[in-house]
């Protein structure tokens, strides 16, 4: 931990980190007021990739907005699908077949693993190790191949439908996923060694960017960031949706809330997601994969909220319907946005190198913030 030192006013200068910087993972700009290599005041500037997704929803039919949801978080897109279809189902009162719910859980968890794998590599890339990202991409590729079979796309999925999913899963998919589970488990020991056996990595992560539970509550940080600080908040457990209550899994928690804790929380979540997928595959019921949904979907007047747990934390859709065929207003609450808002308080007095670590450990996806 670098000791905070007396900072003299006249030595300060400004440094623009981004929007074109390798470690901001997209078009995020952080204006840094610096004193030497110490950060006095970081100020994130957002909006470089703004696509007015919420406004776009007001011009489209209910299912017409579905492809957009997959484009907000390109690293783990399926929970975004999930939240949106579940929101409409809740407001319209559509029944979803059990098989469809299982498929949703399986694919959502696969998406979460894909996202965590990309984060794992990207964090190490931020720390200056280039090789791990190619290993994790290799693992991620197995998921993408499997999902491509059933969804037809590799990145911006639009697989869930109101009342179910658009295509049933087949035996090829199931055997692929089972093979992937086996493969990833065998890789864990290698990744574990990277954590425990590498002093440079530990020294870069331990005690860096400490977020305590109170800070998480003040800024609304959720997901692995909050869980790394010891807050057992996971929507899959706290406000269970879909068929999550039927599975046996744990919520990994950290103690100190530093970058290493957030790292370990995500790392253990990979194992938990694998457990969920395994159980879901074992229990997968027969039946239809798409429920009965009227051709022209008309929602009743009213408003509705639905939250799901994405790879980065709590995603909430809030919808106001005036009874017509398009939303009156759609508000999306994205996890990265509130996770990022921790940054200024987190990084005061930090070294520039530690800012990179801290940002990497928050697992930001900028297009999701600039939706």
């Amino acid at each position, binding site marked *: 931990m670098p000791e905070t030192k007396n900072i003299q006013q006249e030595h300060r200068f400004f*440094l623009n980190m981004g929007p074109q910087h390798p470690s901001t993972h997209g078009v995020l700009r952080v204006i840094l007021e610096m004193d030497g290599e110490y950060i006095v005041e970081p100020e994130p500037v957002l909006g470089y990739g703004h696509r007015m997704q919420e406004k776009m929803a007001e011009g489209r039919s209910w299912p017409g907005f579905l492809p957009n949801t997959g484009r907000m978080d390109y690293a783990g897109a399926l929970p975004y699908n999930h939240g949106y279809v579940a929101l409409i189902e809740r407001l319209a009162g559509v029944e979803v077949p059990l098989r469809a719910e299982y498929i949703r859980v399986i694919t959502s968890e696969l998406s979460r693993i894909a996202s965590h794998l990309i984060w794992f590599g990207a964090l190490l890339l931020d*720390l200056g190790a280039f090789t791990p990202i190619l290993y994790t991409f290799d693992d991620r590729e197995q998921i993408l191949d499997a999902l491509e079979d059933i969804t037809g796309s590799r990145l911006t999925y639009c697989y869930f439908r109101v009342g179910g999913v658009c295509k049933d899963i087949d035996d090829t998919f199931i055997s692929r996923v089972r093979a992937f589970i086996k493969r990833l488990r065998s890789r864990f020991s290698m990744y574990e060694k990277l954590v425990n056996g590498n002093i*440079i990595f530990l020294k870069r992560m331990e005690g860096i960017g400490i977020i305590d539970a109170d800070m998480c509550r003040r800024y609304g940080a959720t997901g692995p960031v909050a869980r790394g600080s010891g807050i057992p908040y996971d929507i899959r457990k706290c406000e269970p949706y879909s068929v999550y209550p039927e599975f046996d899994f744990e919520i990994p928690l950290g103690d100190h809330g530093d970058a290493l804790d957030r790292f370990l929380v995500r790392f253990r979540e990979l194992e938990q997601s694998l457990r969920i997928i395994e159980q879901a595959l074992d229990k997968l019921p027969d039946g239809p994969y798409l429920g009965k949904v009227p051709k022209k979907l008309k929602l009743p007047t009213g408003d509705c909220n639905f939250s799901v747990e994405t790879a980065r934390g709590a995603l909430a859709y809030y919808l106001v319907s005036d009874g017509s065929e398009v939303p009156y207003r759609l508000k999306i609450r994205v996890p990265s946005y509130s996770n990022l808002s921790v940054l200024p308080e987190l990084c005061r007095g930090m070294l520039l190198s530690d800012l990179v670590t801290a940002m990497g450990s928050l697992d930001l996806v900028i297009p999701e913030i600039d939706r």
Partner: protein
Amino acid sequence: METAGNPIVLRMVIAVVLVIAFVFLNAMVMGYLERKISARIQRRPGLYEVGPYGILQLLIDGLKLIGKQLLIPMEADRFLFRLAPLLSFVPVVLPLMVIPFSPKLQARDFDIGLVFILAISSLNVMAILMAGWGSNNKYSLFGAMRSVAQNISYEIPMLLSLLAVILMTNTFSMQGIVAAQNKIWFFLVQPVAFLIYIIAAFAETNRAPFDLPEAESELTAGYHTEYSGMGFSLFMLAEYANMFVVCSIATTLFFGGWHGIPLPFGEYSSAIWFFIKAYGLMIFMVWVRWTYPRTRFDQLMNFCWKYLIPFALVNLLVTAVLVKLL
């Protein structure tokens, strides 16, 4: 270069031309090796499009770099900005003059060969500082500042570890040091000195995990952020030549220089042994680079001042006592 009868000036001119040619060749070979080895480590094919196994890729890359526009940032110090890549080239070419590739293949054997190398190679910092300062870019300046602090700090343990060997050989002449190892290589006698030297060498050449002057995740590209085309490639050439220099010193001082089992190439076999050893060390450096994450700057400095220098001093003291006693 066995032109002992010719005037010394001619001999030196030939040596300089050969050495510069070697620097370019070395950069090509190392560029290829680095990319192939990293590809191997990362389970990807690497370069394979241009020529068999992609061996012509580096040639094409060179052409591309020459063809690129040389951009100079606004309000940069144009003189320093242009001079820096050239200056980075000098301190890596000159040390090659005194490196003994074989008993005869050496441009000049000074009595103070090692001191000459260490003195000249310190100039490298100057080029980086000029590049960083002249670029009018804060990231470049950060890189330059880090480089100065890092290089100057790591010179000390490097020198101390080499001194331990000098105490044993009683000479600064590179040929003399090699000759002293005809029975046993010094990395067996001086393992601590070798370890300290190789760590310091990583820092001196700005290679990962100590590549802080060009830490791409923090400083975009550090001191050479603003360089394009040949300016950039001269820095890369210098980096690889620098690697070769430190590995050659390690070979000469710790791995018995050109000593080795005679090969069926007569006099050349000793040069082959030298290159095998030096390139082996360079491949080791490449391997480390693609394996480890980067240290933080304050950790790097702490490591030097709190661990390397004390250990190097103790090692030097022990060596001095033992040399006196035995």
